[in-house]
């Protein structure tokens, strides 16, 4: 609220001081005008060529005397302003020099610098370890929801775009959830742990809203279904062991699951024990390398982590954080909902129409996916971008144009969603959403920046191991 707003209100014909108050909000807020009102009345009076007494005074309600922000804030400051959520391996990460980042209310280890390393150097080392030997990552913050009941499979069929009938017990599938407007809302690996029991994972940030959406549908739309949902996010500590040596690291610690051979193939799940503790073992990969995600009851998280760490020393095990996790997944073209999607993106836009259960009668968002605008050929589609020269790392959020002109009008045809220096390729890589992107492979586009337009080559969004052979070990 500035004096310009008051002058504008005056020019627009607001005469009554009470109307001006409601229109501009002057005299509202915590001091009820005790500090601002005389100035505001002076401006109004000048505008109306009257005296302040002629303009009048606004009425005010409690508090009648100025109140400090501290009184209103109370305990809501510092660590008590918002919960700071930490995982079971937090103390270990602190002791090993982790630099943390906030993800929702969670503190997540972003990278683990060794003395003298900056983030770039640490991420380079961490990513190489995952690609060449073995990395250790805390994925506990992923949302987890146990969906149980005779209608569990029907419930997931109605909710997620994928077909779930064909998912066998002991197998997992990458699930995508839309809103009813057809846009991507969340994603995650879903495991069928029994005929009538699914272990659903969600994004870290989406855990609460996906749970609320499920409960909403159960209580209002699908009261016919015999299925119940329970949040198990905090029941489990999730330890990802990723990389070609991950099996060697775990083989001496795991009981009851045969890690060698084909008994636990990529995208499967098994029950067993690790260091004597019951675990749910996922053979899944968000890094593109063969790997596992070990779920153990949360109180055992740090101890199991430490034992894997000790066993992994002989195999070059390296703790990695969310920054390396992001780089590794971007090299594979795996999207992050909320980063590569923004609430206006359909499954097809991000190359995921293969996941849609084609024979399903319905699922949330299905009807919206066939509206004309959703089928338009010039929708923004996910592509890979290689900057020239390769040492350039594009700015995330930067616009993309089809010409190098630097003065307006320059119409954007897309934007950069993810961008990193890729340790595996030794150059900058990026993902972006570009109009009709999949029809532009091989084209050169431009990312206009203050220093000039950066040329980028449009490529398929999988930079590393495009055949996906490495996840099979």
């Amino acid at each position, binding site marked *: 609220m500035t004096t310009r707003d008051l002058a504008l209100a005056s020019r627009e014909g607001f005469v009554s001081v009470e109307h001006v108050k409601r229109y501009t909000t002057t005299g509202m807020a915590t001091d009820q005008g005790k500090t601002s009102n005389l100035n505001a009345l002076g401006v109004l009076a000048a505008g109306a060529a009257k005296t302040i007494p002629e303009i009048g005074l606004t009425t005010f309600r409690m508090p009648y005397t100025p109140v400090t922000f501290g009184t209103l804030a109370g*305990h809501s400051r510092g*660590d*008590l302003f*918002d*919960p*700071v*959520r*930490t*995982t*079971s391996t937090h103390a270990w990460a602190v002791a090993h020099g982790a630099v943390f980042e906030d993800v929702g209310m*969670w503190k997540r280890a972003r990278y683990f610098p060794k003395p003298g390393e900056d983030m770039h150097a640490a991420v380079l080392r961490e990513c190489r370890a995952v690609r060449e030997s073995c990395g250790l990552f805390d994925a506990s913050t992923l949302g987890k929801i*146990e969906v*149980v*009941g*005779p209608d569990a499979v029907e419930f997931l069929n109605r909710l997620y775009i994928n077909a779930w009938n064909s998912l066998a017990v002991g197998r997992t599938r990458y699930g995508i959830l839309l809103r009813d407007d057809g846009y991507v809302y969340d994603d995650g690996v879903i495991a069928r742990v029994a005929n009538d029991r699914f272990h659903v994972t969600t994004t870290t940030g989406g855990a609460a809203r996906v749970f609320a959406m499920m409960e909403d549908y159960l209580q209002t739309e699908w009261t016919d279904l*015999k*299925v*119940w949902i*329970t*949040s*198990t*996010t*905090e*029941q*489990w500590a999730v330890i990802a062991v990723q990389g070609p040596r991950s099996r060697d690291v775990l083989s*001496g*610690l795991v*009981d009851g699951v045969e890690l060698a051979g084909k008994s636990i193939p990529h995208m499967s799940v098994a029950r067993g024990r*690790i*260091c*004597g*503790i019951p675990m749910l073992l996922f053979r899944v990969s968000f890094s593109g390398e063969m790997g596992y995600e070990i779920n*153990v*009851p*949360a*109180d*055992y998280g*740090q*101890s*199991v982590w430490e*034992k894997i760490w000790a*066993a992994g020393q002989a195999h070059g095990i390296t703790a990695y954080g969310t920054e390396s996790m992001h780089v590794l997944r971007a090299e594979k073209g795996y999207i992050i909902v909320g980063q590569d999607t923004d609430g206006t993106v359909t499954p097809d836009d991000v190359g995921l129409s293969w996941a849609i259960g084609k024979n399903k009668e319905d699922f949330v968002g299905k009807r919206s996916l066939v509206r004309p605008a959703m089928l338009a050929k010039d929708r923004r589609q996910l592509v890979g971008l290689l900057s020239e020269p390769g040492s350039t790392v594009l700015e995330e959020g930067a616009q993309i144009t089809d010409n190098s002109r630097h003065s307006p009008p320059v119409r954007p045809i897309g934007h950069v969603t993810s961008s990193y220096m890729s340790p595996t390729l030794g150059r900058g890589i990026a993902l972006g959403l570009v109009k009709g992107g999949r029809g532009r492979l091989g084209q050169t586009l431009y990312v206009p920046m203050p220093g000039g337009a950066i040329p980028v080559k449009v490529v398929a969004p999988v930079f590393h191991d495009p055949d996906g052979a490495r996840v099979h070990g």
Partner: protein
Amino acid sequence: MAESAQRRGPVVAERQWLRVLEPAARFTLRGGPDVMAASATAFGVSPSSAACRAVVQGQRAALWLGPDEQLLIAPASEADPLRTALEQALASLPHSLVEVSHRQVALEVRGSYVETILSAYCPLDVDARAFPVGMCTRTVYSKADILLWRTAPGAFRVEVWRSLTDYVVNLMDAVASELGA
């Protein structure tokens, strides 16, 4: 085989008005009245059909959290046999039994200031006339979801998701220190 992993829950220093209770076995049981009735024999506690009431039998308790939901609490060592017994008893009935033993931490808040400490950030009326011994419900403590259960005239059991333990304890601490508790 390597030595077994050690259990380690969130650490909270004991105060005069607060302590962390022993780890417990916890199960969320969902289903109709037939499920709740059938669980009674296997669990050894007849669950309440009245809203927001806990039934205690020895070391075990069943907490009414919803028309189709009970939280079953037992000593930690009983988790495995309990799961087996309950699944056997409920096999023919549509239901959901999910173990959540490690999901939450139990705090006991007690003493003459207990109602004031809770009221500071819980919107419910926790006076004994509105919230008697044996009453239990999900609610919030400021920005954290909690489960509140009055276990004695001067004591509540507060169950909080493990990552929110520090937040709830520190916030209660801030209130308690103003009270001189």
